[in-house]
């Protein structure tokens, strides 16, 4: 069974404990939850899955604190990362490659 872990009961995201290789599979939520849900897309171990629908502009909550803000509407079961969640501090992270985290704003010419 593919599982993810919800740290705090206020959290609207959980951390994947295994890789979700393809969308549409069942995921069991451990920690501060016992519910099941469906992952809508591939999500790697250590990455976050949305537990509920999160409207654009709402806070992303993990560890019971705001770790960022939704930059578009996020549906329950979607991967939450740089493409849909922005830091309240770090502007540069929005320019990084969403898959690798590699920088795109420094010239190597």
């Amino acid at each position: 069974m593919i599982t993810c872990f919800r740290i705090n009961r206020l959290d609207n995201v959980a951390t994947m404990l295994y890789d979700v290789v393809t969308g549409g599979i069942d995921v069991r939520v451990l920690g501060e939850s016992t519910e099941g849900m469906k992952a809508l897309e591939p999500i790697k171990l250590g990455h976050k899955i949305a537990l509920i629908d999160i409207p654009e502009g709402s806070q992303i909550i993990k560890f019971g604190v705001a770790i960022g803000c939704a930059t578009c509407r996020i549906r329950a079961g979607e991967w939450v990362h740089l493409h849909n969640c922005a830091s309240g501090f770090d502007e540069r992270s929005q320019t990084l490659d969403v898959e690798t985290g590699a920088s795109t704003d420094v010239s190597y010419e």
Partner: protein
Amino acid sequence: MNNDRTADLARRETQSSSATWTGYLRDDGRKGVRNIVLVIYTVECAQQVAHSVAAGEEDVHVIGFPGCYDNQYAIRLILSLARHPNVGAVLAVGLGCEYTRPDKIAEVVAASGRPAGWFYIQNEGGTLKSVAKGKSMVRAMRDQIRRDARRVPMTLADLVLGCECGGSDGTSGLAGNPAVGSLFDLITDAGGTCIFEEIVEMIGLKEVLMSRAAGTQARRELESAYDKAVRYCQRVRQYSISPGNFAGGLTTIEEKSMGAFAKAGSKPIQGVIKVSQAPTRPGLWLMDSVPDDHFVDFGYTNPNDTEGIMDLISGGAQIILFVTGRGSVIGSPIVPLVKITGNSQTYRRMIDDMDYNAGKLLSGEITLQGAAEELLDLVVRIASGEPSKPEALGHREYFLMYKHQDTPSLDQGCRV
């Protein structure tokens, strides 16, 4: 849990918190868990000679400062490392042109009751003669500190632990750092001292951080240090989060911060120390390694993990716990570095480098309390002389840099 198991756990806990082992007493009253000769070079030009002196020599480690121009922060750092409780003797090696003075380093070390020596490579007649002289000096000093070692019993109350995390991923805040946090709780309950740093990885957590202050003074220090860290990051437009962190599932600095802060456990924070300062009493301490404000454009706070580890050692940490989800291979000179991962995949893939798999927490094989007790057993074994994995592999990475932390005022520094 059945009664037998409860009794067994209680017994183990009692045994762990009353653990004793044999350490090395120094003149300042501090005790070390290792007894090494430290070779210190005072400019990059002397680096190769210093490493050649130490090559193949058991219990001889190397650190050095690359700059030709000296810097008060760097001198304080060198002197705190040279008089670290794990260091028994020091050889300072200079080229002969640089500002940093190997003779003064040897003088301060000798005044601390340790054998010390120094020379300039230019005066000795170059590489080969310097290496031969250095080897004969470190061998003589090693014989002396082994012969004259004052072996004394140590307990957890004598222990100063430091913790750093690096190569973090989504498991670090779930397993690796919480396991260390629980260990920190056990150590401070037993009268020991724990230091954590990386305040630039507490961005977004001001209220959480301040709510952990042990008192009014500590609260002011934490607020001042936090505000400075935010100003620093805003000014240099760089937050302490790397491509590997993003690839490992961390999306924002706030998220990484909460995960990193988990290694601070749950006990009150006694106050803020700066690099090269030792805690003045037992308990949990935050080290501030951010440059002071008016020099903020000059230098970086933690350009890499090794720089932060050197800071923790300068505060007197005898053992460093290093939490890495993605898998780092670094070690450190002077103190054993213990490698902990919360990612079972990383543990299996890099088994030669990893000391402890906190990923067992995520698979439900162990509780947080159980992980803390296993880690405590590991720390006590390593304090007793068992080499950690990076130590056995010969990892001795170090990094000393220019920085300014010389402004002891509330507005511009964190000391109040």
